[in-house]
C-alpha cells in the first residue's frame, strides 16, 4: 500500500511539473537526490565528490521529465539516467578540469542501513571497493545495483535494458571474479 501511495504521489508530482509547477521538481530532487548521489558514488568508484554527475542527472531529468510516461518507477528512471551519466563521466574523467567539494554532505539510506554493523578496517574495505571497481563495467553495474542499491534483479534488468537471466549470469560472473581477486579475504571476513 505504501509503495502504491508512493507511485501515485510521484505521478502527481510529475503531473504538477508538467503543468509548470517547479516546486514539484524540487520535491522530486529532495526525495531522490541522496539515492542518486549514492549510486553515482558507487558506480564511479567512491570518489566522494559526485556533484557534477548529480547535477547532470537532474538537469537531464528536468529537460526530459515532461516525456516521462510512467511505465516504470521514477526512481528507476532516475537510476537509468544516473547509470548513463556515470558511463559518460568515466569516459570524460581525465578531461574534467573542475572539481567542487561542497560542505553540505548528505548521507544515503544505504549508509544508514549499515551504520549498526561492526566497522571494517580501512585496508580491507579499500581492497573490496578496489575489487568492485576493477570489474568490467557490465559486472560492476549489476553488483552495485543489486547488492548496494538493493534493487531486485527484474528492476536491474529493466534499468540496464537486459533480461533477468542476463542479470543473474552477470552477477554470478561478477561473484566469481570478486572471489578470484579477493582470495581468502571473503572467506575470512564472512
Amino acid at each position, binding site marked *: 500500500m505504501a509503495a502504491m501511495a508512493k507511485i501515485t504521489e510521484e505521478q502527481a508530482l510529475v503531473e504538477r511539473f508538467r503543468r509548470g509547477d517547479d516546486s514539484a521538481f524540487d520535491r522530486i530532487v529532495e526525495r531522490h537526490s541522496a539515492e542518486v548521489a549514492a549510486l553515482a*558514488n558507487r558506480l564511479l568508484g567512491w570518489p566522494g565528490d559526485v556533484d557534477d554527475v548529480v547535477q547532470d542527472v537532474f538537469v537531464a531529468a*528536468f529537460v526530459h521529465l515532461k516525456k516521462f510516461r510512467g511505465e516504470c518507477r521514477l526512481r528507476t528512471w532516475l537510476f537509468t539516467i544516473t547509470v548513463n551519466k556515470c558511463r559518460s563521466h568515466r569516459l570524460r574523467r581525465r578531461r574534467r578540469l573542475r572539481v567542487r567539494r561542497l560542505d553540505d*554532505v*548528505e548521507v544515503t539510506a544505504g549508509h544508514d542501513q549499515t551504520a549498526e554493523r561492526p566497522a571494517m578496517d580501512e585496508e580491507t*574495505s579499500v581492497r573490496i571497493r578496489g575489487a568492485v571497481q576493477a570489474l568490467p563495467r557490465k559486472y560492476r553495474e549489476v553488483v552495485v545495483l543489486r547488492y548496494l542499491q538493493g534493487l531486485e534483479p527484474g528492476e536491474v534488468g529493466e534499468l540496464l535494458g537486459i533480461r533477468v537471466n542476463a542479470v543473474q549470469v552477470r552477477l554470478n560472473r561478477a561473484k566469481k571474479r570478486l572471489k578470484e581477486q579477493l582470495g581468502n579475504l*571473503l572467506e575470512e571476513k564472512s
Partner: protein
Amino acid sequence: MSEEQIRTLLQRADAAADAPAFGPVSTGRIRQRIHRRWFMRSAALMTVAAVTTVAATLWTICMRVEKSPPEPPAIASLETQIEQLRAQTDATLRLVQEVLEKDRQERHLASLEAELASIPDPKFEIERQVDKTAFILVYQADKLYKELSQTESAVAAYKEVIQLFPENRWADVARERLSQIERRQINNSDKGEAKCKPQSA
C-alpha cells in the same frame, strides 16, 4: 560463499567509504545550468560558423589571386619555354625528314643494284658466244666429214677452229678429230700398199 555474505561484505566496505558529496540541487540552479549549456553550444556553433565564413572568404580571395593575370617575368618565362618547345619540335621534324630521305636513297640504291645484277657479265657472254661459234664450226666440220665425206673441207674447218679458238675446249675436240682423220688416212694408205704387192709374197 553465499550471495548474502557477499552482499554484507560489499555493504560494509561501502559504509566504510566517504559519503558522497554534492551541492544543493534546485530548479533555479538547473535552469542556470541549462542556460549556460545553451550559451556554450550557441557560442560553439557561432565560432564554427565564423571560422567557416573566414575560411571560405580566404579561400575565395586566394582563388581570385590565382586567376589574376601573371606578372611579366612569368610571361617571359612562358615565352622562353614556348620558343624552346618550338625549337625542339623543328629539330625533331628535321631529324625525321633526314631519316626518311636516307631511307629513300637506300631503297633506290638497292633497286639499282638489283637491276645491275640482272645484267649478264659481258666477258662471260663473249666466252659463251665464242664457245658457241667453236661448237658450230666443229659441228659443221663433223657433218662435212661424216655425212658428206668431204674430208678436206672438214680438215680445213677443224684447223680453222684450232686457229681461231686455240684455248677453247672445242679446239681440243677439233685436234682430236684431226688426229683421227690422220690415223684413218694412214691406215687407208697401208691397206692400199698391201693390195699393190704380189700374191706370192
